[in-house]
């Protein structure tokens, strides 16, 4: 009896302490949201207090200056197109590399694994040269090509581990039923890979959506700006104009926060699966 009582008291104390830590984690968001609707004067005199009046006009102005719909659309197109293509070519490659265990494919797999430790910054300088020679500069399709290259090693690696766990008998049954190799992959294997498709999709989405450095090197035109680029350009122009900067930041993080809250279960599972395989 005494033990359970102690145990409960201990749990309650843990719970309270953890809630306080959680509150501490939320403080930055409080500052961000509360101050984003303050007038400039209000914001300068008291950043910690609740707003005296709510200025939605801040949002309207920031929305216009950052050209938010355009930046959002660019980010969305780049993220979705890169993801779809990346998942497709990586799943196909990984499938064949597992099922056709040739020396070539084994060496290729080792190369992909080795490439995962190459930091982006160690090849970005010549990359700029390569992409401008190929005419990929300052274009969204060109940027997507880059994401395919950078995403392939990790995505193939994750699919590779997963394909190994798919029993060969299922494919053999489909072959007997008259499917050719492509039919077997698209109709039988690909649907079975769904859990790993979700994992790869989520890991790549968080990476591509938030990426700043690669698009900043690739995209120069103002109408091609992604959300991180538009935010950075905005800060270059409106230093210390917090009444405009904070609403711009709120709008910048909102899509990814909504994505996270609505896909949370898959994101947590995806990260766990990605880490265990990694």
């Amino acid at each position: 009896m005494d033990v359970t009582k102690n145990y409960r008291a201990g749990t309650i104390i843990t719970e309270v302490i953890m809630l306080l830590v959680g509150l501490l984690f939320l403080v930055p968001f409080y500052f961000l949201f509360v101050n984003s609707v303050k007038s400039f004067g209000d914001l300068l005199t008291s950043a910690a207090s609740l707003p005296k009046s709510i200025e939605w006009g801040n949002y309207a102005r920031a929305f216009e200056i950052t050209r938010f719909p355009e930046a959002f659309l660019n980010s969305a197109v780049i993220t979705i197109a890169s993801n779809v293509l990346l998942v497709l070519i990586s799943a196909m490659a990984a499938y064949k590399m597992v099922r056709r265990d040739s020396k070539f494919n084994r060496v290729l797999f080792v190369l992909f694994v080795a490439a995962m430790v190459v930091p982006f910054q160690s090849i970005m300088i010549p990359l700029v040269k390569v992409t401008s020679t190929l005419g990929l500069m300052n274009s969204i399709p060109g940027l997507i090509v880059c994401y395919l290259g950078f995403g392939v090693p990790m995505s193939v690696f994750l699919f590779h581990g997963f394909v190994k766990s798919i029993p060969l008998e299922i494919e053999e049954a489909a072959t007997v039923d008259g499917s050719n190799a492509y039919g077997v992959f698209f109709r039988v294997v690909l649907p079975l890979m769904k859990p790993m498709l979700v994992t790869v999709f989520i890991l790549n989405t968080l990476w591509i959506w938030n990426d700043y450095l690669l698009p900043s090197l690739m995209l120069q035109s103002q109408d091609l700006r992604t959300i991180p680029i538009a935010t950075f350009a905005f800060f270059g122009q409106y230093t210390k104009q917090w009444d405009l900067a904070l609403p711009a930041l709120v709008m910048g993080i909102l899509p990814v926060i909504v994505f996270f809250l609505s896909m949370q279960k898959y994101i947590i599972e995806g990260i766990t699966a990605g880490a265990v395989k990694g």
Partner: protein
Amino acid sequence: MNRKKTSQMAQQIVFVGPAILFFILIIVVPFLLGLYYSFTNWNGVSGEVSWVGFDNYKQIFMHDSTFRDSFWFTAKFTVLGVVLTNVLGFFLAYFLTKPLKTRNFLRTIFFMPNVIGGLLLGFIWQFIFVKGFSAIGSATGLSFFNLPWLGTENTAFWAIIIVFVWQTAGYLMVIYISSLNNVPKDILEAAEIDGASRLQVLRTIIIPLIMPAATVCLFLAISWSFKMFDLNLSLTKGGPFGSTESVAMNIYNEAFSKNRYGLGTAKAIIFFVIVAVITSLQVKFTKSKEVEA
């Protein structure tokens, strides 16, 4: 037989070909080109590129104090950042695997900073350090909050550490949670019956059993902190006085601000070697500590 062989070849090309093509174009070719350019005086603009042998490397090791400074900043940051984010991530996970009523809610909160990109986080925290902290400082009178956080070299370093830990601890927490959930309950119960204290259980049972997760978490934290660019770009711009310039930023500036592409690629190659050596040593070391339940 021959037709089967051709069809096998065609399949290999259709299935694996696209992945190889993009991989070669975007990673392999730039990597090899970078290796070549690191021995030249390429300036990025003129077509004229001449071979200079090891001059760039000599220049970096003997005369480039900014590279050395950025390296020490990155190394110091990596050591502290990796330790703190793993300790916090582990303890968040440890307490959130207890039967708390709010644990799902708390997991969401701890993880949330991680989905926001480093660039935007840096800008958000810039506001908090400049305006938020001083507001708390004047309300509470605590001198901790009245420090010029982004204004001095010492505090700016800690400012970046704070944001980095806040951002990444939740990610590592997720990995530690799944690992803690896999620690067999019967071993823990047996230890409890034998009268082991909570600290003993943690040290002799839980930590050895979650070493596979520690391998992954250390690897991730090391590569995040070593490659840091976005976060300090938006938070401090590498300042004050270049004191928070990371290696990645130093490479970027060498090439894209000073137009010394040859020198920049040599730095990039050194950077690659350092990252590869450190992460493979770490994985080797922690893997040797892994045990089976």
